[in-house]
Every structure is written in structure tokens, then in C-alpha cells.
């Protein structure tokens, strides 16, 4: 896949989220449509991935795992990137909305990441002969996952909503920054698989399935983010009686 495809996916996800919040008329139906389309696309993905796609040249049928594994990991990375975007936005201009969005994207990223790492481990067993390996992609995803599990735990252990918002924003930035450093350090430490993306060697039929899977998961990502955001907002309002638009700091200024 071309190098810009993660960026394009991120742009699409961001566009969906921004549309949802900026255009009030889309709020009622867009996530529902996304979930319904996602369900249909998921059914088709199962057919495409398990039956329609030919076995891969070397990995044979095991290569079919990639059609769900790669989209999961990509969604995890997109969710974490959205989360760190929210964190930076929160530190620049305090708002309960960005805090709620950060909470939702972090949790969804952890869900997708845990699934992705688990599937990657299942894929690695027949392909590399081991469940776990010193692969930069694997380690950096796992480290990201760990630091966001820490982030979620930290959120649930901090009671004051304002401090929670500010501190978790800082924790998110510090955790996200480690991603490139982990990548490089593991690559120097031991490079078992220098071939970057497995998908470059895929033929066109497989590429179609991989993209189909990615788009499917993007629909789910959006629907999940919207619903999780609503939960976060309602928790904020119960914690703060009537949540003002911005924390105390803003009001006083």
C-alpha cells in the first residue's frame, strides 16, 4: 500500500468525527448508518477473506488472518492519533468535549489494539514459528497498547475531573511520543523482518480485501467513537451536575 494510505485513513476518520460534531443534523443518523453499513461490510469481508481471496503465495491460507489483523492495528493507531490530537487540543484550549473524545478514542484504540496484537500473535505462530518476536511493528504496537492501558487506569484512578483531563492529556502526549523511539530502538536491537509492510507483496485481489477490511473497521471505529463519547459526556454531566462548556480556568479568565 502506498505510504500515504495511513494518512488518508486518518483524514477520513477525522472528517467523519468532525462532521458529526460540526453538523448537528448528521448526529442522529450518521453513526447508525455507519454501524449498519459496517455490519454489511463485515459480512462481505468474511466472504471475501475466507472464500473469495486466493491463498497467499508463501503463507497459504494463514495469510487470510492479515485481512482482519492489519485493519485492527490500523484502527488502533488511528484511534491513538486522534487521542493525542485531542490531548494537544485540550492543553491548548480546555474543553470537556475534547476530554470526552480523548477518553473514547483511547478506550477504542485499546480494544482494537488488543485484538490486533492477539491476531498478530496467532498469525506469527505458523508463519515465524513463534508466538512473539522482536519485530519493531509488534513491539511498538504492544508498547503503545501498554501505555494506553496505563492511561485508562490513570483516568479511572483520578477523581477530580479537571485534573483528570489535564493529567491524562499530558500522559497521552508522553506515551504517544515514545512510538517513533520504540520503533527505531527495536529496529536497531534486532531486525528480523526488514521487509516493511507485508501488504506490498500482495497481489491485487488481496489488496482489495485488505482495503475492504480497513474500510469496514473504519465504519465501526466511527460508530464506537460516537457512542463512547456520549457515555463519557453523560458521566461528566453526572459528575459535575451541570457541566459548563469549559473548566473553571476558562470561566475565570
Amino acid at each position, binding site marked *: 500500500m502506498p505510504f500515504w494510505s495511513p494518512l488518508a485513513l486518518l483524514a477520513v476518520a477525522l472528517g467523519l468525527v468532525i462532521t458529526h460534531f460540526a453538523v448537528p443534523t448528521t448526529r442522529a443518523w450518521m453513526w447508525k448508518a455507519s454501524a449498519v453499513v459496517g455490519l454489511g461490510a463485515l459480512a462481505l469481508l468474511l466472504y471475501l477473506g475466507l472464500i473469495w481471496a486466493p491463498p497467499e503465495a508463501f503463507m497459504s491460507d494463514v495469510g487470510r488472518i492479515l485481512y482482519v489483523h492489519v485493519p485492527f492495528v490500523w484502527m488502533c493507531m488511528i484511534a491513538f492519533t486522534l487521542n493525542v490530537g485531542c490531548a494537544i487540543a485540550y492543553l491548548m484550549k480546555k474543553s470537556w468535549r475534547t476530554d470526552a473524545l480523548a477518553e473514547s478514542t483511547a478506550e477504542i484504540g485499546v480494544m482494537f489494539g488488543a485484538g490486533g496484537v492477539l491476531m498478530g500473535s496467532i498469525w506469527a505462530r505458523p508463519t515465524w514459528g513463534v508466538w512473539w518476536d522482536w519485530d519493531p511493528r509488534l513491539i511498538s504496537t504492544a508498547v503503545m497498547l501498554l501505555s494506553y492501558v*496505563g492511561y485508562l*487506569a*490513570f483516568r479511572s*484512578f483520578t477523581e477530580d475531573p*479537571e485534573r483528570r483531563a489535564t493529567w491524562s492529556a*499530558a500522559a497521552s502526549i*508522553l506515551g504517544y*511520543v515514545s512510538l517513533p523511539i520504540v520503533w527505531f530502538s*527495536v529496529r536497531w*536491537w534486532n531486525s528480523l523482518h526488514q521487509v516493511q509492510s507485508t501488504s506490498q507483496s500482495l497481489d491485487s485481489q488481496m489488496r482489495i480485501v485488505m482495503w475492504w477490511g480497513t474500510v469496514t473497521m473504519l465504519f465501526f471505529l466511527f460508530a464506537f467513537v460516537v457512542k463512547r463519547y456520549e457515555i463519557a459526556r453523560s458521566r461528566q454531566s453526572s459528575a459535575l451536575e451541570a457541566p459548563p462548556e469549559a473548566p473553571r480556568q476558562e470561566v475565570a479568565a
Partner: protein
Amino acid sequence: MRPVGLVRGAWLVLKKDWQLEWRTRARLTATVFFSLSTLLLFSFAMGPGIDVLRAHAPGYLWLGILFASILSLGESFRVEAENQSLTGLLLAPVDARSIFLGKVLGNATLLFALGLLLLPVTVALYDVDLTRNPGLLLLALGLGCLGIAAPGTVYSAMSSNARARDVMLPLLLFPVLVPMLLAAVSATKFALMKDVQEQLPSWLKLLTAFDLIYLSVGFLVFPRVVEDD
């Protein structure tokens, strides 16, 4: 009162931390004995094979420092939180960023001192050769301690006020420190043992990059972290 400059403010905070530490030496003593017993436990767990121990000595050394850093970092903001003295610091005409710099340097020097004390212990326990490249060994030790202190200071400022703070600090800090640990262990290993492929400089550079990145991110984020206190 005239505002204090960034560097001078950092120096004042650093000096205050040093004085506080020197008066009791409680923190250093506690961390030294904690990491000593960690190193000893590693050698018990791995059995008596001296070759295995020697090969893994850099890893044990850094794990010892890392575990001890959790204690000392947690303590570094606990003393501030106790008598609301962090609020006092923030009310003083000192930039919050100089508090960050001073605290990082204070924590890093404490860990560095701990590392210096542990080096002879690694000779005794694991039979390593410190004389091969002592300058670069000390450089790796210093850069690594700075790498623990820079993100650790931000996290300990946050977690010192959270519930279950003793669990929170390692939970947040350890994932971030994975590349630091890799680079520090490798650099120490190549400073202690034969470095056939000249890998030591590149690991030192990675450590430097890690320190720079976390110092600057912490520099930007820290004022926001402490401003609500």
C-alpha cells in the same frame, strides 16, 4: 518581587532538592539498599554461572536502577505534596518550567549517584570489567538516568496526587521507558564488553535523542500539569 530567570530558577530548585536530600540522605539510603537487594536477588535467581551473570550484568544494573527510580521519583513529589510546598513553589516568582528542569536534574543526579554506587557492586556480583571504557560507561549511565528522570518527573508530579499512586507511576512510566532501557542496556553492554561492530556511539545517540525529546515534551507539558494545584 522580580521574576527569577529560567536557568537561575532551575538552579535554585535543584539546590533546594540537594539540600533537602543531603540533610537526611534518607531517599538515597533507601534506594541504595533497595537496588542492592534487587541486584543480589537477580544473581540468586540466575544461579551461580558467572558467565551468564556477566553477560546479563548491564540488564540487571539497569533494572535495579529502574526499580529504585520508582521509589525515588515517587518520593520527590511526595515531599512537595505533604506541606503544600509545591503550591508555595508555584506562588513564588519562579517559572513552572524551571521547577521542571530543577526537579529533573535533582532526580537524575540522585539516580546517577545510585548508579555510581552500584557499579562496584556489579563487579563484585557479576565480575564485569569496568576499566575497558570508563568514560563512555559514565556517559551512558548519566544519559540513562536523565532519560528516566525526564518523563518520570512529569508522571510523578501527576501520580503523587492520584489514588493508588504507587501503582500508577510504574504503570505509566514503564512503557515509555522501553526504548530508554534498550538503549541504556546496549550502551552499557558495549562499554563493558567487546564492541566489535562499533555500536556504542549509535546507542549513545539514541539515548541522547530520547533525553532531548522527553526533556522538551516535559518542558512544554509540565506547567499545565502543575498549574491546577
